[in-house]
């Protein structure tokens, strides 16, 4: 496990060196890589994080080297969308049994599995994920992948992020490491252009990036690689020739962006496609970076025109929702990565934030949230279900926005709830997404079902009458 250790250290270091914030590196380390306490917490593991970050690359076979649980309990649970290949939706695992482990057959089984997948599915590449058990028994997936790469003339990429090394967040970063080490820069693109960009950390959930892409198309900006959402292996492999990059309001690939800047001189910024001002800002900064790198300066002007037009359109459409949503109280429990941008977006339509979690946010995001909300006690770290339940009632929230895991806390409190995490069914990105978000919140809050389910039972009422 020594090489693994070294790599983790590196990723931790990267976490620690993230810009902004006045705290020392130690405090940051604590924030980002906080270990989970036994018996109090449930969160994804590093493997989970790595798979989440890479799996939406659609023409790749993702092979999980593990006993059953890692893949068997988790496949087919995410809503990223693909415009073409569907291979990424097929689940592959070595499904190690006791015999494989005891007899020391696991590496050989992995190699055979790679061969079977290559023969049966003709993937553009195979990503191999190590997990707790296979890392523990000392399987060297780097070596197996190397041998397979040579023998099959096919990129076979090791992803070293076994669950026990840390949280989902760390797994995201280790996934970035794997791309940097084995994928990005390995293929030269055919026709690099002056307006090529990378979007990093965009998952295209419910196809929401497709609401943004037309805006970029209108500006003549080409997305060379959107990683990982709806990406193809070749796009990722040639991403090093883009002129600029944007990381989408999450911690997932910031480290990757920074290293790509160092190595290939690709400037980047952290932005968001959530909310109206967020989207406009992102478009402006993309244009700005591209022009600085030599694109035609008229791009700036064209961007301003587009932004003005689009904003006018979207505000008009939102007017319909404002009277219905103004002053409504929202509790946000997003797991954190989107807190900042969603907070901002909701305030734009006049809603009141009565609390938001910043559990997985970067320090920078935390600061931004705090500044925007102007009140410290609205911001909380992770919370037990019971605390969250009481908070909802205490603060008289009209709705909770969160991921599926905490859905029932709101519903059991008979309160409206809207999914804004990976399992959601609506796309909230871009100008279009803002209208959709407002519409969904409106539908949730004003559903005529609420007064009905809150009615006391007939036998309880009988006492009052």
């Amino acid at each position, binding site marked *: 496990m020594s090489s693994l250790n070294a790599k983790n250290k590196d990723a931790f270091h990267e976490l620690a060196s993230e810009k902004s914030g006045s705290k020392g590196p130690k405090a940051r380390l604590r924030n980002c890589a906080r*270990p*989970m*306490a*036994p*018996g*109090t*917490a*449930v969160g*994804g*593991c590093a493997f*989970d994080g790595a798979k989440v970050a890479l799996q939406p690359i659609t023409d790749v076979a993702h*092979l999980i080297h*593990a*006993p*059953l*649980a*890692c893949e*068997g*309990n*988790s*496949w*087919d*649970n995410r809503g990223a969308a693909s415009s073409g290949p569907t291979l990424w*939706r*097929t*689940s*592959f*695992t*070595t*499904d*190690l*049994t*006791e015999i494989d*482990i005891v007899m020391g057959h696991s590496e050989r*089984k992995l190699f*055979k*599995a*790679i*061969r*079977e*997948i290559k023969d*049966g599915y003709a993937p553009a590449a195979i990503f191999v994920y190590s997990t*707790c*058990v296979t890392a*523990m*028994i000392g399987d060297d997936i780097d070596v197996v992948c190397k041998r397979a790469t040579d023998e099959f003339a096919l990129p076979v990429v090791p992803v070293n992020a076994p*669950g*026990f*090394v*840390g949280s989902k967040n760390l797994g995201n970063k280790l996934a970035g490491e794997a791309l940097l080490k084995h994928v990005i820069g390995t293929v030269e693109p055919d026709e690099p252009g002056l307006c090529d960009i990378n979007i990093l950390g965009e998952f295209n959930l419910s196809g929401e990036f497709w609401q943004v892409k037309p805006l970029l198309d209108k500006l003549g900006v080409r997305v060379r690689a959107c990683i990982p959402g709806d990406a193809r292996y070749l796009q990722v492999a040639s991403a090093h020739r883009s002129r600029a990059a944007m990381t989408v309001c999450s911690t997932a690939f910031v480290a990757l962006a920074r290293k790509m800047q160092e190595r290939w001189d690709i400037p980047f910024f952290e932005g968001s496609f959530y909310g109206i001002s967020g989207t406009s800002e992102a478009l402006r900064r993309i244009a700005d970076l591209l022009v600085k790198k030599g694109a035609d300066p008229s791009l700036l002007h064209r961007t301003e025109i587009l932004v003005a037009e689009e904003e006018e359109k979207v505000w008009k459409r939102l007017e319909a929702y404002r009277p219905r949503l103004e002053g409504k109280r929202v509790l946000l429990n997003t797991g954190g990565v989107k807190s900042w941008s969603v907070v901002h977006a909701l305030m734009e339509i006049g809603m009141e934030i009565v609390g938001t979690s910043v559990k997985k946010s970067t320090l920078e995001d935390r600061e931004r949230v705090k500044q925007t909300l102007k009140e410290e006690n609205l911001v909380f770290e992770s919370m*037990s*279900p*019971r605390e969250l339940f009481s908070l909802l009632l205490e603060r008289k929230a009209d709705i909770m926005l969160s991921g*599926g*895991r905490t859905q*029932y*806390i709101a519903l*059991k*409190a*008979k309160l409206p709830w809207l999914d804004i995490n990976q399992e959601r069914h609506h796309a909230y990105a871009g100008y279009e997404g803002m209208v959709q978000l407002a519409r969904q919140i409106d539908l949730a809050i004003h559903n005529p079902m609420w007064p009905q389910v809150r009615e006391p039972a007939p036998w309880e009422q009988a006492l009052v009458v």
Partner: protein
Amino acid sequence: MARVVSQTKSAAVNPLKSSQPLGAAFAFLGVDGAIPLLHGSQGCTSFALALLVRHFNEAIPLQTTAMNEAAIIVGGADRLEEAILSLKARTRPRLIGICTTASVEARDEDVAGDVENIKRKRAIELVGTEVVLANTPDFDGAIEEGWSKAVTAVIEALARPDKQYRNPRKIAILPGWNLTVADIEHLRETAVSFGLDPVILPDVSGALDGSIPEDWMPTTYGGTKLEEIRDLGATMQCIAIGEHMRRPAEALQRLTGVPYVLFRSLTGLENVDRFIRLLAAVSCKQTPLNVRRNRMQLQDAMLDGHFHMAGKKIAIASEPDQLFQFSDFFTAMGAEIAAAVTTTGTSKALEMVPAKTVKVGDLSDLESLAATADLIVTHSHGREAARRLGVPLMRVGFPMFDRFGSQHKLTILYRGTRDVIFDFANIIQANHPPNPWPT
């Protein structure tokens, strides 16, 4: 008798299985005031939790010992102790059900020894909370075994062995994991209608039926009470449902002497008849009117439904006992099992499956065998294969995350069998409209 064909591939493609610890946790959820605790790295719990939540559309209490890198190297005893104490302090569960995972089992940790140590050392702090261990590595078995091991562990830890008074009205029912909430409720009502007083273990009907408690509950609510489990020895008769429930039934018999009868399946007229005969014998009562009426309704459904089922080719993939339950029923209605795929090859139930072979495998095996089938029967993960093949899918088992109300579907006894016939016939009809109207 079916021949069991084992897996030859190295890559499992589109897994059929859910893991053994998940099965054990699932069983612990049927005990009142319980919290299942997965002993391993945190991700396993997070995945299992997400899957259970998606299936039940329900908040699920499930915890982890969150083994980190250091614990993986030095062993997890400390993490386990910390987890138990913290759970106890915060949520006061009546039972903590520990399920081991691959990470601790692959290290060959003596978790049983650790648990004994913790119980001894922390006896005072743990007053009022039972701690029960099921050894459930992921590299072995699947849901069914996990469930069976957890129930066995609960019985062995709690049922009082001392000889005591047997209550002639009391019976123990040990349902397999494949029975839904509705099935369990129906079982109880049926037993009660014979004047019997059943103890059902585990009883997911109270815990996972979607009822809404007034306050936030950090543990399960509803389910088998610990007192009832301790007193299992006072029952007259134990009824185990599914081959995988033989192990807990035997444990109960060994400990308390309560005899057991095993029903492989309670779906299908003949199986139900046998069950009803047993209830009548144990209770010394005539079969109540409502049960008689249910039987007549089933007969009628069989007469109406058999046209749609006769000769139909069915490809089915499931855990062994459920595989038997449905394939036995389909063939009893004149259909043919064209392909049978299962998760693990050790269950005795597999030999009884009315198919030439049963393949231990995954959903890609099912897909390659199901191309000419009229119907695919498996859980929600089968939807992609079904779509690709253009064969309709009947969802059974776990996980079922793209259909509402799976827990409230009845699949056993006369009424459940009737409902399954309707389901089956409706899916077939929707896809092969019978005799188009002459134009």
